[in-house]
């Protein structure tokens, strides 16, 4: 589904990412782990052509998409739910969803408002509420729903569990697992190892802008000292 190779990214003259490579297979969920500042969010932003200047190769379904602009990447099938959620606070739930709406993809059942409300029942009860008046968890659900309105093939999720109560994290985890069952490919940035392990098949770990580990969760757990060196704060 997604293949990133030798990805370098820069803010001004400062190089943030060094030769990052990663792969997400079709229908696979991969966790991108690492400490604060390791370069996880920057990797997602670089893939989406938002923010940093980047070089390297990005392939989606085998096609080179490195030169595409953000909106073209979305049209090509990548859905992006950013870290800070970025709900349109002045717009209602329905309007937020409308911004994300894109045509259906042939061969895939399109996401409709009804299907999304079935996935996130909370949202169904607040159709006309403004984004700014929602709780953090509700906003996170809306962010996911809004991204799904674009009928993506691959989801880039940036820390969907951040700052949320455990009960809400659980709801979101269930929803993301349901998406995976639907056949969506997922690249998930996380600090919460537990959350990542629930959803993902495989993991990559970043440190200081480089990829330092790739493999199964079992392999990562096999060496607790290494795991703590890479992940714990």
């Amino acid at each position, binding site marked *: 589904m997604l293949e990133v190779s030798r990805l370098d990214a820069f803010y*001004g*003259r400062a190089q943030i990412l060094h030769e990052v490579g990663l792969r997400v297979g079709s229908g696979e969920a991969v966790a991108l782990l690492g400490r604060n500042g390791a370069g996880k969010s920057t990797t997602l932003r670089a893939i*989406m052509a*938002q923010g940093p200047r980047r070089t390297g190769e990005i392939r989606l379904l085998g096609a080179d998409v490195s030169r595409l*602009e*953000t*909106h073209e990447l*979305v*049209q090509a099938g990548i859905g*992006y739910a*950013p870290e800070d959620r*970025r709900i*349109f*606070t*002045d*717009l209602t739930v329905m*309007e*937020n969803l*409308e*911004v*994300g*709406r*894109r045509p259906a993809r042939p061969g895939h059942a399109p996401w409709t408002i009804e299907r999304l409300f079935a996935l996130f029942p909370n949202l169904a009860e607040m159709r006309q509420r403004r984004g700014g008046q929602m709780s953090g968890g509700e906003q996170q659900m809306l962010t996911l729903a*809004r*991204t799904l*309105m*674009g009928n993506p093939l691959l989801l880039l999720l940036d820390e969907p569990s951040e700052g949320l109560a455990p009960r809400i994290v659980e709801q979101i985890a269930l929803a993301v697992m349901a998406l995976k069952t639907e056949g969506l490919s997922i690249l998930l940035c996380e600090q919460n190892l537990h959350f990542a392990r629930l959803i993902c098949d495989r993991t990559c770990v970043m440190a200081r802008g480089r990829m330092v580990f790739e493999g199964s969760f079992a392999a990562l757990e096999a060496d607790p000292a290494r795991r703590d060196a890479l992940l714990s704060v």
Partner: protein
Amino acid sequence: MTPLSNQGLETRLLDFIVAQFLTGLASACSLFLVASGLSIIFGVTRIVNFAHGAFYMLGAYVAYSLTERFSGALGFWAALVCAAAVVALLGVTMEILLLRRIYRAPELFQLLATFGVTLMVEDLVVLMFGPEDLLGPRAPGLKGAVDILGQAIPAYDLFLVVLGPLVLGAIWLAFHTTRWGILVRAATQDRDMVAALGVNQKWLFTSVFALGVFLAALGGALQLPREAVNHSMDMKIIVEVFVVVVIGGLGSVTGAFLAAVLVCELNAFGILILPQVSLVLVFAVMALVLVLRPYGLLGRADGAARPAIGTFITPWRAFTTRERAAVAGLVLLAALLPLGAGAYVLSVAAEIAIFVLFAASLHFLMGAGGLPSFGHAAYFGLGAYGAAFALKLAGLSMAGAILLGPLLGLAGAVLFGWFCVRLSGVYSAMLTLAFAQIAWAIAFQWVEVTGGDNGLLGIWPAGFAATPAGFYWLALALAIMGVAALRTLIFSPFGFALRAARDNAARAEALGIDRHRIQWAAFALAGLFAAVAGALFAFLKGSVFPDTLGIPLSVDALAMVLLGGVETISGGVVGAIAYKLLSIWLMSETEHSKLVLGAVIVMLVVAFPHGIGGAFTRLRDRLGGAAA
């Protein structure tokens, strides 16, 4: 005649007030159309479209020539709408050809580009339609007056009174019921997120631009039956529109409507109650609104706004020894100029020196302070008036006038700066514009003291400075000392604190830097140095006019700083020399200096999106980057 009873007088007064109120509402219509267009464009594209006034003017001109061709009642109305559509197409052309190239440049750069377009349009309409005022036809079917409470109100005015709210309602419906409108509102809040949801920003921007320009041009076309069309209507409206947009809140259409009504009613009644200060009144209300509600009546603090000044890729550093030597050599060369130059060249050179100091002071405020100003001429002009007062009223010598005159500029900067540093970004910049207009209005209207439009004359240099060479040396010396002082300030602890507050206000405050205080001090200092330049300017020209406080001069300074490169430490100096030489040369070479100057500004903006100085720094980095 029977004497009116008291009650009769009161009814009369009430009738009159109602009539005046309706006139105000009618004027508000066009102003609202133009302002809402500007507001919508700013909301989505973050561009302060200075050319909006020019599109308003073009709307009126094109409507004039179309009403000449189309006949009949239907023809008149069709002409107005067609004119707006034609001008909207022109606006879209500008957006696609010019603005798309510079969306990533710092915000003020786009203002400069659209200012260049405005200059071009001003000359072009004179070329195409002639310099005379053009009187358009009356609106068919609405030629008469309607009797309301015994007062004759033009039927066309009543039509406008109704049209304004109708347009407001139409825009509201479009924004809340169509997908396009929802996208526009979303992009107003976070345009990058809209792109991250698969929306092509380019076409969204273009369509928003088309609508905004259409509204501006329609506003101009609708004025056709009310006032004569002329080639200076763009500057008049753009100032009012800035005021309306800032009072109403940038990006808020309803706010623009409320503010347009407020401003027009203030004008309608202000002129009756306080005719001497009618100009001041509107700006005073604007200042008041901004102090109470920093983002306007219905505006909202925008978190996602980029800093007005771009990110600094190359950190600032002091001159190296070799660069110091080179600068010393250039200064020496400049000092030797009188050996080989005549009186005209020396007066041009003195003017350039004065503008170098002026631009350097603005550059200090914008580059180091991160406080853009659209009204820096206020302090330049106050310095000039201060010097003139010191000489004429206080009977001081030239030296005394140049020494004490700038204190008036300092006082103005201390007063106005207190307000301005409490706002940020474009709002702060627009407030500076409003204050400059207040200063201008006072100079223009307080004839007893300032001489009004006739200015103050006979301010000639004395002693050694009476010769062209002497005055040139004086101007050069003060300019060099001023620029050196500003540069020293940038690398002083004060400068570090100022730059820290610019780059990250929250962090600077966490470090114990009192941001408002330090920016206020920077504002006052920048005003003082501008005032010194203004005092010199008064003696160069031998006179002071309200123009020295005017918007064109403020924009000149802005152009100098941006062309020189606001991100480059020497940007003000380089820009002032380049811009001044260019404009003086163009003035002597062509009759259409505005057209050529505007075109040059546009080309420079596209070619050097980081200014001339910035381009030079980048070149140096590229050549010497490996070594450094």
